């Protein structure tokens, strides 16, 4: 008797029992279920929610692997143990085993905690509310480790994940019903609850905080600092990274957000597979460029003096905004979440454009935390139903007008 039959027997045994959702969640991972059509169309297309989610995860894997190498690279670079990259994306200084192992041991626990805690909460709710475990968390669980600083303490992450899944999703009724993007809810929770771990110049490079504590304790060591590009710009410091570094991703930042080139490829992959909305991605980029151009225009019209604290961010070339910070990652992976985005095609254009526009606005004017994409997406998540409402009203009005013409 094969595994298939054994699992089938177990499924029948667990049917209508409390643990059925938990068992079925595991079972459907191994086998596409034996469910057949009962009403309506007798045949169905190949795609299900798992396949959809899995496609997004596949797009995230390169970012994850790059993030592991980059974590090690930034650590070793800041400690002065290796030289900076010299020869493009495939530089030998970057793709070393040494870099990878450091990153692996820092990033893997984040992934494990994110999935372990998140799925546990999901299963718990499925068992209590007697519904199947839905796949929403598959993507969220992968996004979370990629959008936090590398040294985030694991207990903090666990607390944030519980908060995000329960308050961000389950209280609204679970997958498909939530208003805010769960991954960003988790990050926002971390950001407001533990701000010292989410911003500043110490958290972006592995070992920096530890070293700072040692120095404070009297040890005679060189401080490790690793500031993000945005952090430097916000303080008007000289930038030590070239545009190509920023595009390829050899810069400090949250684990998976740094490599714009990989995110670009992932975005194209999602558009090609028809899983991600090209409308949101394109309009998001257009929105960011528009805001960037406005700021560049303000600078070139001399409406702002060089002494202003906003000057260096405003004068950043408009297209650089696309490749620094978490903007690219947010637009490709977070803004396109179908549940929290606008649901109408017209609405998606407006929604995406405003995310891009507001991201850069917040980025430039927020003195405490020089990144805007998280807050911009959360803000637009809240407004997405309103955008949809007006788009749908347009359709309703058209129908009413047709009726009036008829009866007039």
């Amino acid at each position, binding site marked *: 008797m094969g595994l298939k039959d054994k699992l089938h027997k177990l499924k029948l045994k667990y049917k209508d029992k409390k643990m059925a959702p938990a068992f079925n969640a595991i079972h*459907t991972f191994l086998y596409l279920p034996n469910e057949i059509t009962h009403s309506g169309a*007798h045949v169905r297309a190949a*795609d299900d929610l*798992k*396949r959809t989610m899995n496609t997004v995860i596949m797009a995230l894997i390169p970012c994850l692997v790059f993030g592991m190498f980059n974590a090690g690279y930034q650590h070793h670079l800041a400690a002065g143990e290796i030289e900076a990259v010299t020869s493009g994306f495939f530089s030998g200084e970057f793709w070393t085993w040494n870099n990878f192992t450091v990153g692996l041991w820092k990033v893997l626990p984040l992934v494990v905690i994110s999935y372990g805690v998140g799925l546990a909460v999901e299963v718990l709710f499925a068992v209590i509310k007697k519904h199947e475990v839905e796949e929403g968390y598959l993507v969220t669980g992968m996004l979370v480790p990629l959008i936090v600083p590398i040294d985030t303490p694991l207990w903090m992450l666990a607390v944030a994940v519980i908060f995000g899944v329960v308050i961000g999703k389950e209280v609204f009724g679970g997958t*498909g019903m939530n208003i805010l993007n769960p991954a960003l809810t988790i990050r926002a929770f971390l950001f407001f609850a533990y701000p010292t771990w989410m911003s500043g110049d110490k958290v972006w490079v592995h070992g920096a905080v530890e070293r700072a504590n040692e120095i404070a304790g009297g040890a005679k060591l060189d401080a490790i600092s690793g500031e993000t590009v945005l952090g430097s710009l916000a303080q008007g410091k000289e930038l030590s990274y070239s545009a190509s570094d920023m595009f390829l991703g050899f810069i400090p930042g949250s684990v998976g957000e740094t490599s714009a080139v990989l995110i670009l490829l992932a975005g194209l992959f999602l558009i090609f597979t028809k899983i991600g909305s090209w409308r949101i991605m394109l309009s998001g980029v257009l929105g960011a460029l528009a805001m960037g151009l406005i700021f560049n225009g303000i600078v070139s019209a001399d409406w702002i003096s060089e002494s202003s604290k906003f000057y260096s961010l405003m004068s950043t070339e408009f297209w650089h905004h696309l490749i620094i910070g978490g903007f690219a990652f947010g637009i490709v992976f977070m803004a396109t979440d179908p549940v929290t985005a606008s649901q*109408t095609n017209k609405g998606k254009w407006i929604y995406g454009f405003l995310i891009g526009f507001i991201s850069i606005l917040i980025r430039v004017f927020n003195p405490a935390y020089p990144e805007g994409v998280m807050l911009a997406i959360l803000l637009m998540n809240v407004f997405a139903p309103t955008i949809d409402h007006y788009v*749908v009203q347009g359709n309703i009005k058209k129908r009413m007008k047709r009726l009036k013409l008829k009866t007039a």
Partner: protein
Amino acid sequence: MSKDIRIRKGLDIKLVGEAEKITADATRSNVYAIKPEDFHGIVPKVIAKQGTEVKAGDPLFHSKSNENMLFPSPVSGEIIEIVRGAKRKILAFKILGDKEQKYTEFGVKDVNSMSGDDVKTHLLASGCWPFIKQRPYDIIANPDKAPKAIFISGYTTAPLAADSDYILQGKEKELQTAVTALSKLTEGEVHISVGKKGSSPLKGLNNVTTHTISGPHPAGNVSVQIAKVDPINKGEVVWTVHPQDLVIIGELLLTGRFNAERVIALAGSSVKTPKYYKTIIGTEVSSVIYNSGVHDEGNIRVISGDVLTGENVKPDGYLGYYHNSITVIPEGEDYEFFGWNKPVFNKISPSRALTFSWLFPNKKYDLNTNTNGEHRAFVVTGSYENVFPFDIYPLQLLKACVVNDLDAMEQLGMYEVAPEDFALTEFICVSKQPHQNIIREGLDLMLKEIG
């Protein structure tokens, strides 16, 4: 005014087992069944009790709400059983067919000299009225409410469905008589849509407006054509008739007899030699299927109708009243190892998420009845719109139906759709939601609350 309608949004589901264009005579069925459930929303009141002898065209029952609306026996013979289910609901009238058919004579009519009321009375009395359906609500037309137009779709796009061009061949005279009669029932026009290519016998009929249409499924759905030609507003009624039923109406007027004969397609990947059969409404499906033979008999689904909108009738079931095809496909009650993430070559997919049907646009697929996933909440957005050629927001309308929001349903265009229009969105739905059921229940609720 004649129109050339081009539909871009949609999806042609290409399946193995298309019926070959040869017509054979089906074996005569012993027993025929008329199932009141085929007439949605009709509560039957028995006229022909068990044991009565009926002729073809004699009424079996009438509608509880309108006793003039008669439902006829397709054959002559003896009522051997009235099958009842829970709460004594009538499930089927079973008629043991005579060897020699006897017909009730309704009298030969000259349509040109008939008035609208004459036509109406005649169709009601002869049992042909149920062939006329109405939008909104996709139910049998209410004879007391005048339609603004009558629509007939002569274009076939549903997967493996009987090709209207083929089954109507040589029936020009009946078709002309029937549409002339129908044209007296409306102040407006009778609209017929025919495929742009192809040679439909519906093409040069008089007393009608003919439109040409092209594009993928659901272009053949009559609601799509109504939406493009003369969309339904609140308070308006449109009638629709399937062209195969025009033949029966035409024959009634020309010969005075209700002849329920019909050419149907037997199709599907489980059928050994798929082809067309001449048979009678209500026949045992086995009388058709086993002429052609099936593969893997223990593992088949027999569908009266097409794979998107038909009814699961089991091998001992009967051909539905409105259906003109029988489709037999394999059941899919099996597990597939890592079926959710491995590359898929043998199934149709609207995406490219490791599914490769986009590489082979002309490949024919052998699909079974597996859902390829479990029921989930609505998550993905924007995909239904690609196969839904209406100026309607499908996801929003479905959600309005789920929460029984009558105002929203009305505003979002519920009057313009039938469940069959949501067959494709249901087919591609990632969350495997039962769209057609949702729409049917929504329409029923509206009918009950608004009327």
